[in-house]
């Protein structure tokens, strides 16, 4: 379980997130939505332990993230960031294997290579495993990085480091953070990606928190949606309860039209609000 208790993070006296409290349980997919500058990315970075809040505390299973060993944490917490540039000519395989960095000693072992293979197959990038990352398109890069992130968290069924009793009784939870993962992806890969995330998040020892811009995708895949605005958590709960016309209007300044689609899926169309309505 991941818990944020009254966290506030400010840069030069401007609060990017203020007094946010939330609880994230394993086996569920949490998606954060909100307008630009709402503090979504800052919240993810704080939850992931990259930056520490000036007040409040982020706890992993009740332990302050600041007190955790950084390598230990890296073995069970991974973050997919936005647009990653690499200044050197690394191959796709090298980038994916990099995800195993906290697990291996001085060089990747056979298990690490095997996991890298598995991940590259999962993301459909095996055919260009020898290509230079710098020559890839934005969407291809995003898939390579997602493969790397999952490689970082992957437990192989035959992982010798996980003995039977730890995996059954006291397996530590794993934490996956996604910061606008769909940028650069075409529609097919967006859906593939969300499915993969959904499958991964369904595991009972995985806490997944992501930032998404597309409200429809958020509504479709999230167990819980968190709406942020001006650094504050405006609402959280199941998509149907949280993504209401009133909330969308006041937070995003757009007028939603609900279209009933087949199945339980919410479908939203948007139009710009009249400026009078917003204020």
């Amino acid at each position, binding site marked *: 379980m991941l818990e944020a208790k009254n966290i506030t993070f400010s840069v030069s006296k401007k609060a990017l997130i203020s007094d946010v409290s939330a609880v994230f349980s394993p086996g569920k997919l949490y998606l954060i939505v909100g307008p630009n500058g709402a503090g979504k990315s800052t919240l993810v970075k704080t939850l992931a332990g990259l930056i520490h809040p000036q007040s409040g505390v982020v706890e992993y299973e009740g332990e302050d993230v600041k007190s955790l060993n950084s390598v230990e*944490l890296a073995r069970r917490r991974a973050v997919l960031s936005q647009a990653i540039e690499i*200044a050197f*000519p*690394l191959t796709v395989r090298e980038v994916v294997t990099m*995800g195993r960095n*906290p697990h291996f000693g001085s060089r990747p072992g056979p298990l690490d290579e095997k996991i890298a293979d598995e991940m590259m197959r999962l993301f459909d990038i095996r055919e260009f495993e020898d290509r230079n990352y*710098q020559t890839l398109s934005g969407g291809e890069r995003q898939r390579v990085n997602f493969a790397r992130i999952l490689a970082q968290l992957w437990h192989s069924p035959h992982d010798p480091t996980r003995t039977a009793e730890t995996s059954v009784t006291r397996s530590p939870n794993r934490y996956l953070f996604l910061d606008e993962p769909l940028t650069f992806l075409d529609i097919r890969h967006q859906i593939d990606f969300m499915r993969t995330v959904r499958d991964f998040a369904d595991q009972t020892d995985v806490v997944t928190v992501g930032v998404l811009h597309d409200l429809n995708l958020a509504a479709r895949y999230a167990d819980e949606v968190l709406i942020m605005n001006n650094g504050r958590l405006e609402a959280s709960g199941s998509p149907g309860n949280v993504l209401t016309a009133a909330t969308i209007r006041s937070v995003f300044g757009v007028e939603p039209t609900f279209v009933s689609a087949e199945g339980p899926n919410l479908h939203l169309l948007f139009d710009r609000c009249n400026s009078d309505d917003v204020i």
Partner: protein
Amino acid sequence: MLAVLAASIRYGAVDFSISDIWSALISLLPGKPDATLDQRIFLELRLPRAFLCLLVGASLGVGGTLMQALFRNPIVEPGLIGTSSGAAFGSALYFVLGGALQIGTSVWSLPIAACIGGIVSTYLVFALARSREESRSSIAMLLLTGLAVNALFMSGIGFLSYIARDPQARSITFWSLGTLTGASWAVVKVVAISTIGGTLLALRYAKQLNALMIGEEEANYLGVNVKRLKWIVLTINVVIVAVATAFTGVISFVGLIVPHILRISGGADNRYLIVGSALLGATLLSLADLLARLSVRPAELPIGIVTAAVGVPVFLSLLRRSRYVF
């Protein structure tokens, strides 16, 4: 590398044949007659010089690799962030003031002066390049600040050589062009300690430097303490480059080109780059030294002139050929 080393000890102002070299080496053994003049030239000048050359080349190559990995930028060389000009300034200061202030003239005092100069200038670059808002130094800021601080220290060196007496001024000029004539066994020992120690230490951080290639934030997420890594690697770089520079002066382009060549031929893994750049740096600098000694025989060119003259066109052609993204 061995071939270049062999050539480097054979040819020079005086050429030695293989048998001369053998007899010189044999004369070292106890119970043999004293060495002849030629043999002593070989043992006390040529041989330490060849070793110094290897060590300094290795230092510059490793320094270049470390800086490029740290700044995640393939156009950084150790000198660009002020380390070598600061070291040269430190040694210039030592030349001019050392005698006057009666500071000890042991083999250690020159590298200490250069080291302090290198550390001060590198720190200055970092302190000035740090923007107020972010705690992270941006690359462009760092390079431009490095340029400015370099210019400052070069003017300081100019000032010192202007006020210096003649022999001191000449030493300073030689220093800023790079020269290996100061080689002796004592010097070789000092440089060997910093080069080999620095390289071995750097290898321990190769894995973390690899993680840094995909970004500072990403490296953090992979469990690397980036702040600490930066300080350790910078310190290694300052020490090996400043010590090498202290004895040989400013030798440019080796630290820039060596990692480039290696990356084009064998990838960007820092484990490979650190070892490779030590070997290739040593080889290239020995070749340059050979060229410096043979081109205007029996005199010799400052080695910095050779590395820049040969290095610039090589660097430009590498840049045009490769697909680096800046």
